[in-house]
């Protein structure tokens, strides 16, 4: 995947990602319209499909709303790279299929608008604008099992012996 970077700071919380007043739908595209609107008005209309959020520490802190990673996907974002993630947001992202990568150096060296290329399989992140390559932290094997199953629900179907 390839997209341009949108930079955010530390502690971007789920109320900023998607304010609670919009949590009356499960429609990803509808949620996406309001993504980040508290701190980046019109974010979703400025994002091009495939763009990447690059953020600081503790991204996604706050509530357990799975609408947060859904809103990010709905806005057209293809992945989030951060220095660290809040735990419920991280689980939710894996579960809904939003790639979340931990890589401090990319975050510190990337500027808004830089073109980033991500290879999820290897965890390689390439900043085309800076011509620099990085490697994201790898996931534990147990988590890889879930990702490779195509998400938690498919993983459960397999455990329960239901055809995937």
């Amino acid at each position, binding site marked *: 995947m390839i997209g341009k970077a949108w930079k955010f700071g530390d502690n971007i919380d789920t109320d900023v990602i998607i*304010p609670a007043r919009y949590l009356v739908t499960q429609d990803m595209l509808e949620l996406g319209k309001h993504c980040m609107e508290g701190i980046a008005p019109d974010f979703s209309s400025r994002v091009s499909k495939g763009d990447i959020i690059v953020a600081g520490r503790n991204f996604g802190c706050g509530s*357990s709303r799975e609408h947060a990673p859904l809103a990010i996907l709905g806005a057209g974002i293809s992945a989030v790279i951060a220095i660290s993630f809040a735990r419920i947001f991280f689980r939710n992202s894996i579960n809904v299929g939003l790639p979340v990568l931990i890589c401090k150096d990319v975050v510190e060296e990337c500027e808004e608008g830089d073109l980033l290329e991500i290879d999820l399989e290897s965890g390689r992140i390439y900043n085309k604008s800076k011509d620099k390559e990085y490697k994201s932290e790898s996931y*534990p094997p147990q988590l890889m099992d879930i990702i490779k199953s195509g998400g938690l*629900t498919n993983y459960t179907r397999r455990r329960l012996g239901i055809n995937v």
Partner: protein
Amino acid sequence: MGMTLTEKIISAHTDKDEVHSGEFVIARVDFSLANDITGPLAIKEFEKIGINKVFDKERIALIPDHFTPNKDIPSAEQCKILREFARKMDIKYYYEVGRVGIEHALLPEEGLIVPGDVVIGADSHTCTYGALGAFSTGVGSTDLANVWATGDIWLRVPESIKFILYGKPGKWITGKDIILNIIGRIGVEGANYMAMEFSGEALKYISMDSRFTICNMAIEAGAKNGIIPFDDITAEYIKSRNKRPYKVYLPDEDANYKEIIEIDVSSIPLEVAFPHLPSNVKSVEEIGDIYIDQVVIGSCTNGRIEDLRIAAQILKGKKVHPYVRLIVIPATQEVYLQALKEGLIEIFISAGASVSTPTCGPCLGGHMGILAKGEKALATTNRNFIGRMGHPESEVYLCGPAVAAASSIEGKITAPYG
């Protein structure tokens, strides 16, 4: 090697004799819950799994508490999805408006969570139940849907930070001041992915309601769970309520903690968390003049009877400042009824407060007290993020019930006199 309280409870819910931090395990779930925001998404996901019954219809609670009584048509549709699923699956613990309360106050009160449980809830403040000596953590809707299907969940066993609380809390100091003080020390990701285990001699002065408040806000330090070992106060609370038998677990003396932090609670002042993070904590004595437009006393953090008693004690015979809107929200119908019997509701209304039926409402900017641009609210709730209670340019300050009540009279953030 010894186990922390969290490790001990998780291990008892696996097929292993011992588990330690960092291990991935599949743990059996004793109880699970969802609300009107997270439930509909979980139901949609559950339907994708392709089975037609839940793991145990008596171990699931569906609690429409966030946007209820419904604020608009879309929120009514959400509740309808929850209600219809509850009927279809014959879920025993579905709470309709009139019986419903804020989930994390309601379930302990109903005795549905017991010490030693593993509880998984699609709400981040599920960590509240750690106050009962249970392992309890918040997840998203997909995780919960999978719990409904299998009755278990994958967990990475968290490291624990042990907080040893000693000394006696000062006048008006409650669990809110203690947890805000701790979050102020360690920061909003100070316990990310970890368990916060609270222990020490000060616990004997800390009521059950205050313990719920402390564990409730463990998530605001990023924690997976907050937990307090079972003691006489827990026993007293649970004895007339528990709907299931329970087993008490205690941490081993040689358990391995990531860090041990000792805190003299006698030195903790009345605290206020400034916008826009719960870790921006200052003593109320050092903040200068901050004028407020609205005060909210309620939520899963501080809507219990102890909170209302403190607020009423301060508001008795007084009037809410003419520039302030005071909104009091008892967390459950039982709390509401108790407050009525004790004359607290009369005190609030005589003071010029608005008293609402139980709802999460304003805490998350849902309804029943949304802020306009530029307004400031002081609230006994748990989050003060940008736009949390309304307009992105409004502000929320967090505090305990004493500061909230006193400030509603003065019109600015202040400590109670006397």
